[in-house]
């Protein structure tokens, strides 16, 4: 039915917010693939990751970056990682699935998550209002990755370095998560 136009919709509307020196941005244009390691298939997948992304498979709790499609691999479980990359037609999850040639059980997660980047020198102070994890740089340094809960929502948090944190949570509750983050940012702001 040619008259019907299918338009993609962002989880929110590409929201941005800045209070003091903390900035919160909804990250768009990124695809997410879940890569599960087949039984006894770690070596093959490791090689495939190296071939495709010139980086190593991350250990659980860590992430590695790659210049290829601006990718970041998140080590989430002993047999699972997430691949975040720039969402282009030539690099869709379907295309990646073909390229990995069965070395991983791949599931498209691009529409499952909303992603926010919280950055700025006071980003940790804002996050300590909702994040139970110890985000001190000695404990949760650049590249560190964890699954946790914030305001009753499941969240994946990644330290991107330089005071920048990537937060991923369920798309359906994106607005609640946004409100929680922004409230935290506002609550740490000093009065004018």
């Amino acid at each position, binding site marked *: *039915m*040619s*008259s*019907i*136009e*299918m*338009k*993609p*919709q*962002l989880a929110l509307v590409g929201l941005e917010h800045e209070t003091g020196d903390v900035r919160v941005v909804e990250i768009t244009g990124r695809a997410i693939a*879940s890569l*599960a*390691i*087949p*039984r006894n298939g770690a070596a093959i997948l490791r090689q495939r990751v190296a071939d495709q992304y010139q980086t190593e498979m991350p250990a659980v709790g860590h992430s590695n970056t790659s210049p290829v499609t601006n990718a970041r691999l998140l080590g989430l479980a002993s*047999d*699972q990682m997430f691949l975040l990359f720039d969402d282009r037609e030539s690099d869709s999850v*379907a295309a990646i699935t073909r390229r990995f040639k069965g070395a991983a*059980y791949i*599931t*498209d*997660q*691009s*529409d*499952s*998550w909303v992603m926010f980047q919280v950055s700025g020198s006071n980003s940790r102070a804002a996050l*300590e*209002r*909702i*994040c*139970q*994890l*110890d985000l*001190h740089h000695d*404990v949760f340094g650049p590249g560190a990755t964890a699954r946790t809960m914030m*305001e*009753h*929502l499941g969240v994946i948090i990644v330290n991107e370095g330089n005071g920048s944190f990537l937060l991923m949570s*369920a*798309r*359906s*509750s994106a*607005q*609640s*998560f946004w*409100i*929680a983050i922004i*409230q*935290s940012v*506002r*609550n740490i*702001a*000093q*009065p*004018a």
Partner: protein
Amino acid sequence: MSQPNRLRNAGQISQIDSTTRLAFTFDGKRFNGHVGDTLASALLANGQRLVGRSFKFHRPRGIVSAGSEEPNALVQLRTGAYQEPNTRATQAELFDGLEAVSQNYRGSLKFDLMAANDWLSPLLGAGFYYKTFMWPAKFWEKFYEPVIRASAGLGRLSGEADPSSYDKGFLHCDILIVGAGPAGLMAALTAARSGARIILCDEDFRMGGRLNAETLSIEGALATQWVAKVLNELAQTPNVRLLCRTTVFGAFDHGVYGALERVTDHMRSDSSRPRQILWRIYSKRAIISAGATERSIAFGNNDRPGIMLAGSVRAYANRWRVTPGKKVALFTNNDDGWRTATDLAANGVDVSAIIDTRADHSLSAPVGVDVYLNTRVVDTQGRRGIRSITLSNGRQIQADCLAVSGGWNPNLHLTGHQRARPIWNEKIAAFVPGKHLPVGQIVCGAANGLMTTSSALTSGLDVAQTTLSELGFALTAIELPATEDEPSSVTAFWQVKESRSRSWVDLQNDVTTKDIAQSYQEGYQSVEHMKRYTTLGMATDQGKTANVLGLAVMAECAGQSIPDTGTTIFRPPYSSVAIGAMAGRSRGKNYRPTRRTPSHDWALEQGAAFVETGLWMRAQWFPRPGETHWRESVDREVRQTRQSVGICDVTTLGKIDVQGVDAATYLDRVYANGFAKLPVGKVRYGLMLREDGLVMDDGTTARLSEHHFVTTTTTANAVGTFRHMEFCRQCLWPELDVALISVTEQYAQFAVAGPNSRELLRKVVDPAFDITNEAFPFMSCGEITICGGFPARLFRISFSGELAYELAVPTRYGDSAIRALMAAGRIFDVVPYGTEALGVMRIEKGHVAGNELNGQTTARDLGLGRMVSTSKDSIGSVLSRRPELNREDGWGLVGFIPVNQSDTLRAGAHFIPVGQTTNLDNDQGWMTSIAFSPTLDHYIGLGFIKHGANRIGEEVIAADPLRNQHTIVRVVPPCFVDAEGERLRV
């Protein structure tokens, strides 16, 4: 004269800024104070001795202490919706414009009509509630209780929603240090220099503890200068976090501590920030350096305004430059009390006498001060404030302030929050922390019974070094500052037995020595019982000044030692925490997250009524103009769907991606029925059992390829089912090659149901995909494209009982998809339907849902017993065959219709045989789900009844005693529409 009790000389350690002037009101009267004042110090400076009325007898009361132990000076702060009762004036930091009013009186503070209670005090002894008001019985609810309730309570709530905001947060550290007195500061300095991450909390707005109130010297200079130097170093150290105005109120498991930071309480108004923050502090170790609290002595009329704790009187003079009286007497059983006399005299205050219960001492009194040894204060005089005192030797001494010191109790509350019992220390006549502290906790300074400054500094250093060593930090050399060792000898003395007047033990609860004695005489010989009978140690101060004294009085009654008498257990919170702070930001719509379906915005545009289903907001029905009742909308949606086509957002169903070489084997084990032989491109209904054989959940599973399945779960069980499946994968069968991940959020899914559903979909599905009945029959599935190449999945499954499909698209296209489907269906008069119509149609079809899958039913009960495969093993299959679960008279799912078709049915009604009494003995089952069926034009129901299908045609009573409705219903098969399933397969 402004501030008549403010000391005029600058003082050595004054911590007020006398160059500033802060205006405030108390009971509407204007006063002035200074930056650095508390409300209490400012009131005392202004000569305001009477600040409140006591709880039970409405006796005049004044300020007693200078900290969080204050039992009397509870005031209402602020006005309007911001009004907060029971705020301790001794902790309220003064700010310009502060408005405070006294509380707990009728009439005025000076002339309280309720003071008549004091005359009735012989009738109002311990436990009078329990002994009085017994007769006549009918008076209790109509008279006694209303009167008591109207009289009880301290202060008044505004009755309005609290407009302040609150927040919470999570902090982490190597060492949490509670209390910034000499021990805490020394510990913090030691730990900070080693590089450990430190959080130092103090409930005061100025760190330093007693050093802020004493004229001691450290390192040859005033102790306050040492405090400033240490705080300056700590503030410059990046691994240190200083939290003043922060009370650590609870010690919880695993080194977790609760702390309340009062962020803006000291400001007139600051709506830009939360008023208070409730911190959860995760610590590897905790050093408790919470200091000690002074206690009083029980003697006749020891509750008059002007009778205060001696250490507090000293603090008001030294820190706040205030003398609570012009003529001060001192009553003590220890050396520390003498220091108050010395400091007051040094400030030019007239000290009329020192009365010491001890027979001898080695201290020297200030020049001109009379000293009475081996003497007690037996009574006091004065109406709204003390005027004079009477001694045991018969002398009467003029005094408008009596400073009392009965010794100091270590603040060991946090050490007891995990049921550790303190132990008695005879030397200081007080309890000190026992051996069994919470894991990771260590105590130092006065909190550990070390009552001199030098011992506090030493113990702070020692415990910090011990803690650092345990944590693996290299110790940095640090020199112990030199200090003098102040006298601190004490000889226990609890109550003046010569006193004939009432002697107060707990000022906040009006508990006297007589109450305790009476309680003991009446058989309440356990401390815990005495506490509850007399109310000793309850309310906002939790008996900080009263508990040990009360215990000592009880011990004397029992003729035994204090340790033999025992002690009560401390529980969090150490001091009051506002409910608002507990709630934090979780208020109103922020109480919990909200999940929105992909068609939420579109449904809003349609004016849908929404319903919360778990966290989801789902469209419940879509009213149209002219419809005045929800049933009209729902009936229309059902009829139109069955007649043509309807669309419902079913995204909320759980969706789990199952991949792997062993995926089919895995599903065979998880589900009661088999999936190994399910062909690619097909869907099968599945039943999941718990280990005990009862039904856990149901859903459909589609086989997208040889090793790739997608299962669905009910909305309510989406998380639980996924958790169960992960448990099975990781723990039960780790050898299987299978991977799971939730795709609930990944796909927007829409049910397209009704005889025109296929025709509608033909307008959306790309022509390359044949969805005819022959090519895509009932229970088919496939990956397709729609609207010119957009990826989607199509499942031919039906919850409504009609020819139906479920179309799944990536969530980002969900909004477009619903609009596309509605546009495509316009020529069929397509109707969106909500959860109500969804429920009606599934009941008409006899499909089970949450009401039937309630965790108590078996596959057999549901009429699905044959789905439990006997040719394979699966979770719950063995135990589902237990005889008790397969009794002939067991429950069976059947349908019900009212015999009189105009009758309504009620879910929850119980089935009683006709002619029998409605009671549990005759209970034969219950109605699980009901709906008005627009298709049949009468109510229908599903439910469980004994013998199930064997009773088809029988009539029973659906009894609903709660709503007083008894309806005769006929038992019918559970499927009301298209029992043969012909509509599904066309």
